[in-house]
């Protein structure tokens, strides 16, 4: 016998305005927004989430786009699928780290239906896209009936499955600035199975000054090792303004491992995750550094 979902009232707005109007009416009650539903439907089957009202935005085609120009940077509509990002020539060319990240998000089947905005709004601390957008200095555009706002990607998730989105708000777009010259970005996750949730993940962006010796800027984002994806700012401080060396990278890894606040779960201990962060930050930063030298 399979799980039958609880009943709910279903709305399928065709525009952002219609969706916001519905949110203003039902948002404060037991209401959820569903996009691809690749995360939400599982929680609904488990009865962890039992919405009375489901606002199904998958059909808002105006939020399905990827655009890029040198001034504006990259813009991804919230309803763009993971697969579209993975396969986008623009992303391949300017932000290959995003395509690499997407290749390891669940399975092709999930990536074909699941959306980038749904993933981020879900607020799962082990999600793959958030740390990468944080490392890329991304911003998230949020629509509400009282107007729009944008927040830094790093400020979006507050804790486990909790975000800054108000009951009457909708994530509409992810924005990533054009990368500064001599910038390299790398993301790696450690998971138990291919395509599984991260046990720990690390995204690093390193920018070198013109002579490509000194690190002029760095962003290190950690996934799955805190209630929300986080920046390892102490680790960044160790690298910023310095000449990158293996020794320095190892120190940054150590610092990040101390900054993280992982918890023991059914499979892996807290100590193990800290060790993973230590090693991953060192390796991923090294890779980002190598890429920055070639960029």
């Amino acid at each position, binding site marked *: 016998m*399979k799980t039958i979902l*609880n*009943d*709910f009232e279903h709305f399928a707005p065709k525009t952002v305005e219609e969706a916001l109007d519905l949110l203003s009416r039902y948002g404060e009650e037991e209401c959820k927004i569903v996009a691809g*539903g690749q995360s939400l*439907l599982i929680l609904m089957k488990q009865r962890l989430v039992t919405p009375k009202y489901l606002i199904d935005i*998958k059909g808002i085609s105006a939020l399905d786009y990827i655009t890029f120009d040198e001034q504006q940077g990259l813009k991804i509509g919230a309803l763009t699928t993971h697969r579209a990002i993975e396969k986008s020539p623009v992303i391949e060319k300017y932000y290959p780290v995003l395509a690499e990240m997407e290749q390891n998000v*669940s399975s092709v*089947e999930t990536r074909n239906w699941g959306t980038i905005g749904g993933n981020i709004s879900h607020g799962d601390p082990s999600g793959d896209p958030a740390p990468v957008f944080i490392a890329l200095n991304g911003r998230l555009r949020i629509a509400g009936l009282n107007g729009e706002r944008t927040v830094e990607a790093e400020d979006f998730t507050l804790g486990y499955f909790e975000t800054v989105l108000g009951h009457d708000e909708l994530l509409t777009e992810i924005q990533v600035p054009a990368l500064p010259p001599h910038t390299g970005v790398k993301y790696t996750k450690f998971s138990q199975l291919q395509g599984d949730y991260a046990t720990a993940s690390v995204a690093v962006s390193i920018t070198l000054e013109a002579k490509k010796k000194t690190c002029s800027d760095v962003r290190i984002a950690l996934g799955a090792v805190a209630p929300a994806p986080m920046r390892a700012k102490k680790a960044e401080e160790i690298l910023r303004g310095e000449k990158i060396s293996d020794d320095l990278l190892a120190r940054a890894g150590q610092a990040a491992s101390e900054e993280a606040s992982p918890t023991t779960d059914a499979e892996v201990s807290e100590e193990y995750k800290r060790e993973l962060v230590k090693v991953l930050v060192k390796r991923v930063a090294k890779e980002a550094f190598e890429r920055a030298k070639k960029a």
Partner: protein
Amino acid sequence: MKKELKFKVNGEDYDLWVEPKTLLVQVLRDELGLKGTKWACDSGACCACTVMVDGRAVKSCSILALQVNGKEVMTVEGLANGPELHPLQQAFIDNWAFQCGFCTSGQLMAAKALLDENPDPTIDEIKIAMDGHLCRCTGYNMISEAIQDAAKRLQAQKQQEGGK
């Protein structure tokens, strides 16, 4: 309250009324009687329920039926041409790519979507495309080999048709 669902399945038009909570796999199996699509883990973890929607492989247990309104679904029942098996199906048989067969319809539909997009995939590309699919008896190598074999058969078929 039921809502209208108009969509195409294996080339045929359907106009149904379904409860919003209905999953695509439920409509296919229970409303349309297309039981080739398997409903297994029910948590998006095994891909046995894979079907194609507008040419892309998706998990029918993790999609609300209403979300395929206006779209075109293809299930394993849509593969064969009358009594003549699809080259993928024949390649699965010839390469011993299944034993119990429970995961096979999902495997076939993911493989179909792959070959439609990439007619000549490498073994690595096949592994990436199929990595969500769990099989508990055959093992994965024979499945990968079957897909590669099917790719060859489909290409030969195409050349033959082109030569006519």
